[in-house]
């Protein structure tokens, strides 16, 4: 690879530059599906991060043993193992969160972020870099869906992580915690994120010119 990669830049790449939700637009199913409350957004993000870090590490460790032709089934086996572990862990220790997330935990198996990082990064890079990539991407995803979930919870339910936030006279906008509201809020957030990205790229272009 022409560009020299270090752990920090790989981590920041996932967290900001190629943020899976806001830039790559991957994993939108849980992004819209579970973000009705801040706690489930955060829980879903961390569960996905755990799976992503572990699967990235093991795929990277095994990358020289897995034949090219059967890599996809191998990825599925590795990812599914960790999803099962996380699922059982949540059921045992965080039953409330587990029931709030429902089938979305099991569906991490087919989450395209996890798959895309296995295929595009972990299969080609060293274990240490793969962990950094998994952490960056996972936390980038967590941050993005937590922001989305908090916005939806505050305006759609008047609470933030279950704590009542709005004055008593506030009538919550119930549409925001319904599926439609997920798409609308995500669209509006993407406008803000793209505007910020444009601003940043303009600024860096000006710096280079000077």
């Amino acid at each position: 690879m022409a560009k020299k990669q270090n752990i920090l830049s790989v981590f920041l790449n996932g967290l900001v530059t190629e943020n899976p939700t806001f830039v790559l637009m991957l994993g939108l199913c849980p992004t819209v599906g579970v973000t009705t409350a801040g706690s489930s957004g955060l829980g879903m993000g961390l569960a996905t991060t755990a799976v992503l870090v572990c699967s990235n590490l093991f795929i990277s460790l095994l990358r020289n043993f897995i034949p090219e032709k059967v890599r996809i089934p191998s990825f599925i086996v590795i990812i599914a193992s960790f999803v099962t572990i996380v699922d059982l862990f949540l059921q045992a220790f965080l039953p409330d969160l587990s029931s709030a997330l429902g089938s979305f935990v099991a569906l991490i198996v087919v989450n395209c972020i996890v798959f895309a990082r296995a295929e595009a990064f972990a299969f080609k890079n060293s274990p240490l870099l793969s962990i950094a990539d998994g952490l960056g991407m996972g936390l980038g995803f967590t941050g993005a869906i937590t922001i989305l979930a908090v916005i939806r919870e505050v305006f759609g339910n008047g609470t933030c992580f279950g704590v009542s936030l709005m004055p008593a006279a506030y009538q919550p906008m119930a549409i925001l915690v319904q599926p439609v509201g997920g798409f609308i809020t995500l669209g509006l957030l993407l406008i803000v994120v793209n505007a910020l990205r444009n601003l940043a790229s303009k600024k860096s272009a000006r710096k280079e010119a000077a």
Partner: protein
Amino acid sequence: MSNFAVTSSPHLRKNATTQRIMMEVCLALAPAGIAGIILFGFNAALLIAICVASCVLCEFVWQKANKQQVTVSDWSAVVTGLLLAYNLPSNAPWWIAVVGSVIAIILVKQMFGGIGSNFMNPALTARAFLFISWSTIMASYPASIVPDAVTGATPLNALKNVLAGTAAMDGLKFDYVDLLIGSHGGVLGETCAIAIILGGLYLIIRGIVDWRIPLSFMATVFVCFLFKGGAEMALYQLLSGGLLLGAFFMATDYATSPITGIGRVIFGIGCGFFLFLIRVFTDSAEGCSFAILFMNVMTPMIDRFTMPRPFGEVKKHG
């Protein structure tokens, strides 16, 4: 302007501007608004004023902020504001009107490219948004304040009970006169059938809207209910709820209805059919806005399949 024939040149030109058309629509909407104020009192007038003002203000602020040409003077925001207000119950709080206007103008109209580019009717989408968010406020239909007004359930809710078999037709507390003058519960601009029909006929005679959409819409509803509940039920259904307002003023929105004649007939029949399905088979008594919104989304497809082939094009085999 209403009756597009998609042909090759030469074309006739008509001296119709957006501004002129929108002003005529406002004029046609006026009787329904005046009736609403008489029937429901001062708060109805206040809501109409708030909706129109905030729609115009939203359009102005958005276009200024985005350094676009300000097109407030084309009156389209006024029409959206009026239609939105007519879809609110007369006791709605002021902020409902403001939130609805922001949704209609900014979220539905301007974000998709302004006038002519929105894919759903702004006023109706805002109403649907408000209805889902604050259903208790949006579904509380105050009775009219005029003497001898029909109190209790709205005509549509009463008819719903008849359809469900829990009430009898001769137990209904309203008659045709009540429905025509609008002295019954409902949103503030939909109850007075005479005023809406007057405005609608004006638009059709002036050539602003195509007669095909309202006619096929209402005919479909009438025929469906004729088979479901008889002639009296069909007439009552035709005159109550938001059907007339929707058929004349909202289903005929240029940007969100098909441009071919046959496409408009299909559009009207679709609206009528879905309205029938919602009014009969769902929990809610009224389905006009959702039926129209559904057909709005179908419009590009209807246009695609009803577009006449250009002269000389050979039909593709396969």
